[in-house]
């Protein structure tokens, strides 16, 4: 069962080399081996989006990404965004708009939200909802989440340098 492979990748800017089982998904690798527990597991079949993180700059679901497939990749988890200016705006907006309750979907939701904000500066509420369709939240009814993303988009539109 354990034909382990050695992978080398960067996680949150740090080089990591590790042996992994072929069946281990990226989220388990990060959570169990690197103790980066900010990436949450909701369904482990790629529907709920709680495990969303960044691989090579694009959002990805770490529960249906095998760790062995990440050899050479640059992975960023929620723990790496403390000093990220966009994420700082999103954190403030999520709190102001009550866009989280239990907090379980929140790290994945923030990853997708950041992607929307940086990729789709013109997005309206309807587009934001479509973009959020890969992230389930069971607490908020999405109202606060959509409002928070809109709030950040609006602030950034008024301040294009983004600072």
């Amino acid at each position, binding site marked *: 069962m354990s034909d382990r492979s050695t992978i080398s990748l960067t996680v949150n800017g740090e080089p990591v080399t590790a042996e992994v089982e072929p069946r281990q998904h990226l989220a388990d690798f990060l959570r169990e081996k690197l103790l980066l527990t900010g990436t949450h597991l909701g369904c482990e079949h790629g529907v*709920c989006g709680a495990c969303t993180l960044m691989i090579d700059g694009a959002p990805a679901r770490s529960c249906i990404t095998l760790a062995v497939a990440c050899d050479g990749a640059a992975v960023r988890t929620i723990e790496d965004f403390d000093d990220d200016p966009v994420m700082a705006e999103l954190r403030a907006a999520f709190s102001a708009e009550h866009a989280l309750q239990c907090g379980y979907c929140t790290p994945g939701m923030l990853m997708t939200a950041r992607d929307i904000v940086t990729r789709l500066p013109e997005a309206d509420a309807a587009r934001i909802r*479509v973009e959020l369709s890969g992230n389930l939240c069971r607490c908020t009814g999405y109202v606060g989440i959509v409002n928070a993303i809109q709030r950040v988009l609006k602030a950034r539109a008024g301040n294009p340098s983004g600072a």
Partner: protein
Amino acid sequence: MTSGIGARVLRKEDDRHLRGRGQFVGDIKLPGLREVAFLRSPVAHARIKRIVVPEELRGKVFTAADLEGVKAIRAVSALPGFKPSEQPVLASGKVRYVGELVAACVAPSRAEAEDLAERVEVEFEELPVVADMLAARAEGAPLVHEQWGDNVYLETFVKGDIATAAASAPVKVTREFRTARQCMSPLEGKGVVASWEPRRDQLVVYTSTQQPHIVRTGLSECLGIDHGKIRVIAPDVGGGFGFKGILCPEEVAVAYLARRLGRPLRWIEDRREQLIATANCREHHYVITAYADREGKLLALDAEATVDAGAYSAYPFSACLEAAQVASILPGPYDFPAYQCRTWSIASNKPPILPYRGVARTGVCFAMELILDAIAREIGREPHEVRQKNLVRPEQMPFENVTKKHFDSGDYPECLRRAVTAIDLEGVRARQKRGEADGRRIGVGFSIFCEQAAHGTSVYAGWGIPMVPGHEQATARLTPDGGLELRLGIQSHGQGLETTLAQVANEVLGVAIDRVNVVHGDTEYTPYSTGTWGSRCMVMAGGAVARACQEMKKRVLAIGAKMLQASLDEVKLAGGEVVGPAGSVSLAEVARTWYLRPQDLPADVDPGGLEVTTGYKPVRDSGTFSYAAHAAVVAVDTELGAVEILDYVVVEDGGVLVNPMIVDGQVYGGTAQGVGTALYEEMPFDEAGQPQASTLADYLLPGATEVPAIRIEHMETPSPYSEFGQKGIGEGGAIGPPAAIANAINDALAPLGVEVTETPVTPRRLLAALAAARRSAA
């Protein structure tokens, strides 16, 4: 700016979650931790002939035979005639549903533990399966618990004098309704980490629960270990919605094995386990006859309700809570004279049902509100007019209805009027006349309901389930630097109680919100509590915090007065300081004096000091009654069976709002779940009792594109019974949508003679109803 009652304070709990630094049970790692995977029954009903555990797996795989001294879970009810079930921790003799635990497998990783489970052989002798509650109720059905002689946990009958109305009422409407079995589906599943701590000779159980103290009591009973040797900790909990108000067999098994093996063990539920085996809820069937006059005034209601409670009575709410609740709350917010209701709580070869947000209210509201619309169609009136004929009126408050429910306060007719205005009923009717360019049919629907919350001893004593809530207790402790610690036995898992309870303390003591530390979810540090359920925390825990802080205030003033050399009646507490005629001292200075400079204390100082534990019950414990009117506009595509929600309004009265932002969040979130109940969510089983949804691709949760931009209006009628006039409001959002949305669909399709009576209203169901209507018209 005030941060007391009524302030829109941002949540103290947000920052850790926004940085991925919440701590959920699956995040807990202990040295030497091993993972547990359960072998679950693949069949719904069978005798276990034998279980073969390969020799080399001894010490790694455990079956019922290995659980020495572990008792079955028993959730009884004192209601006359209730038949209790014995829910084995690991199946013994028989399995009664697919997914029932058969063996626990222990390995370094979950994947390896699952590998072990595959190597265990179980020989089953399959038995006839009963997977439908009406079949299970019928004579001669296969028996889930043979010794009972039938499959009825409990039958209840509320007898009423309906004969007069039945004989003379000009309008009689009979309908049959069904609500699907659902899964509450919090984003985080259940999970447990248990370890035996030799230093304290104590079992420490981290578990994803709403009720840490109840889990501790349940573990104590099942394992035969003193409460003092068990500590239950609920860390951050990723949503509960009722599902985590349970003692589950997995908790008992993992706790037992952690002690026996002397090493920490962890079981983290996966989504498949949750869907097929652990998180089932809400499967109702109704047959209701309503009698009314030509104006739509209800004269009598005759109802039968059946609830599929599954294979076992779950701890602590039991298998009969839901049906017993149906009987008592079916009349809703309506004033009518005659009522009769028979209910059955039925055992079937499906997972035990647990309470889900709103519990029986969602089904009850669906049945009652659809019956009222059926009456309206029968007599050719607007549905809201028929409701206005029947709603309890504000001048009747407090009001006792036909089942002796005590409504505390409110203006229900006004609530409905506001919903009618907000949804623009006239505008929708005009639009319906014009027709839609795309051929879809527009409909508008309403529902109005009440949400009894924070009901206490007097209500639960009669049900006699394993826990009856009494006084809710809180500890308040001023720290030497003037900070405040609040300790409560409830658990906050998204409701924001770390913030709102701090607001209560701020209201009474003036302590800044960021100096208040709310400790909850840990039996070691908190007073006993039945936990977080029944929308009780803001009323009960909020009341307890108020009481503890009021007592603290007295003690602070006594010390402060002495420090200011003033008399007690010359000092007051303002802005977090004791203010006297000639100066003031801060809470920190008062606290420092008590703890570190006792020589400066008054001679008659309260020896209890600056630590207060006290209890609270409302003036009446029959519950606060929040209520709301929901209104929906839908567009129905009769070719595809698709339903789109075009507009959605909630007019809600939750009494005095402690934090309006958090209340709105509860209403939005509950309503989104209600949209799921109405249109998407269904946990079906086939005739063999096999679950037909096992992933979130089969069990559809509403996403951001399915949930409309909900509009909320508030009324704020204080409850006369709670500390600040607040009412419990956590569940209401989830109660109204299935009724409002189904009524809107029926409004859209009335010209075609189509009426839906079952949730969820899926495209398949809708197309079947359309086809049936076409057939009967032809």
